[in-house]
């Protein structure tokens, strides 16, 4: 099912992009959670936008490189001239994509946990005066889990386009439109929730709606229920990508 040499090649060829996105996300997280000037914006800016924008860019570029671009350039011919089956190729590439995201969030979460243990941030600082006490480690893990699931769903949709189309042009075009609209609508919806009239309707336009840090902070279970949707989307999208890629004619 999994081809280790192919996995190694995927890790190697995407290392720069993965490293820089993970680095930027982790540094921003440390900055927002530790500097007095930005602490109050930890949730609106960092967890509200950065945890979808940065992984969004990463999956958009990477999903295309994992299948469509290799078919487009012709280098997939070498992989498929070995006893490796097409289904093994898609499984390995999807495995890489999901796990690189898991690792990206794990590193970022780890950094936040360390910072938060050294100097805990109070709900008052975050502007949530109705809540008492400090942000807990459990909440940090839950928020990131919620964000990770939505990013995996984004990745799955980009991967689906990458498996369906044999040209980077279409794969990137449609993935870009999908990720762009999702992230943009999420930002507009957030301004809506902050009080800008009419913008809150945008939450119906984006799968980022299923990422709910408010629910975590208020300690209800909404965020867990909402995780079902991105998981379902991910399973379906990875499935379609895999089936189409295994069945279609490859112009190699």
């Amino acid at each position, binding site marked *: 099912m999994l081809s280790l*040499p192919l996995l190694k*090649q995927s890790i190697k*060829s995407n290392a720069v992009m993965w490293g820089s996105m993970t680095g930027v996300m982790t540094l921003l997280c440390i900055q927002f959670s530790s500097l007095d000037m930005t602490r109050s914006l930890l949730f609106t800016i960092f967890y509200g936008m950065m945890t979808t924008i940065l992984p969004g860019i990463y999956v958009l570029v990477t999903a295309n490189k994992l299948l469509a671009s290799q078919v487009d350039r*012709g280098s997939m011919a*070498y*992989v498929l001239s*070995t006893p490796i*089956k097409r289904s093994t190729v898609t499984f390995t590439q999807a495995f890489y994509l999901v796990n690189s995201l898991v690792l990206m969030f794990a590193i970022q979460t780890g950094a936040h946990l360390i910072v938060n243990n050294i100097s805990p941030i109070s709900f008052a600082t975050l502007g949530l005066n109705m809540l008492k006490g400090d942000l807990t480690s459990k909440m940090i893990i839950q928020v990131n889990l919620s964000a990770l699931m939505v990013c995996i769903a984004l990745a799955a949709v980009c991967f689906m386009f990458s498996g369906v189309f044999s040209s980077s042009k279409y794969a990137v075009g449609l993935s870009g439109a999908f990720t762009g609209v999702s992230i943009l609508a999420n930002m507009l919806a957030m301004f809506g929730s902050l009080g800008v009239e009419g913008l809150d309707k945008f939450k119906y336009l984006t799968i980022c709606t299923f990422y709910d840090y408010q629910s975590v902070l208020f300690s209800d279970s909404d965020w867990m229920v909402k995780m079902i949707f991105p998981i379902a989307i991910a399973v379906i999208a990875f499935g379609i990508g895999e089936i189409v890629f295994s069945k279609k004619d490859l112009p190699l």
Partner: protein
Amino acid sequence: MNDIIKVSNLTHDYGHGRGVFDVSFTVKKGETLGFLGPNGAGKSTTMRHLMGFSSPQSGNVSINGLDCRKSTGRIMEKVGYLPGEVALPDGLNGREFIKMMQGMHKTKNDERTAYLLKKFRLDTDVPVRKMSIGEKRKLAVVTAFMSDPDILLLDEPTSGLDPLMQEVFIDFIKEEKQRGKTILLSSHIFSEVEALCDRIAIIKDGRLVSTVDAQEVRHGLHNIMTVEFKDKDDLLQFCNSGLELSGRDDKHLRCSVKVYDEDINAFISAVKCLKIKGFSEHSVTLEEYFMHFYKKDRATGGVCYA
């Protein structure tokens, strides 16, 4: 079960008269089949079906009795493929690419790899991206042969190689033939097909024009002998000697005859006692034979074979 590669009635129509239509041929165990045709004839398309990249619209393609699309993975355990266009994965150097391919083939034959690298004089420390087209090609050749597969699908293997390397490659394929490999080699170059292949399938506009035995073709070729005489009597005597005439020029006292290899003695006895002023020989090559197929019945209908 002697047929290793089997293509039966393969059809894949891409529209506008492009694609392959009702192509059938087989390659027997240990045989080298040349797949000869001009650019755009459908050679790579046929290879793509054999590699399981495309499904036939109708017809069948199989290797070792297994359907090329359904059992691709199993077939590839025995197949070495050299793509027509080199597009190596980026971000690797030559050695890393070789290692990756060894891993995916699940074979590691360092001795053979070293032999191939030496034979094709390839420096593997260069990033693939910086390699010239010829070097990329050589790297692709090394990876296609390094797991020592029994069946080889080679799509225009010498394109991009310099003449010296082309010669090395041709010698190498002769070696592989000796070792009993089954080879399908596509090409638009007559000389390499002539040098390497046991049988030749000619494809044009997606259709097989003819499949010929290379040995037979070579044997069936003839020479055109043109003799110039000192006087007309000798010319007339020569013309009546029973040889197959192909041209006669009374003004210059010249006469041309078609001479097959087995007629050469008859030709010599016919000219022995005649007074000859000049003599020239012209061999019809395999290339001319094929040019005949290439040029004949174009879409325009013109016959250009001179």
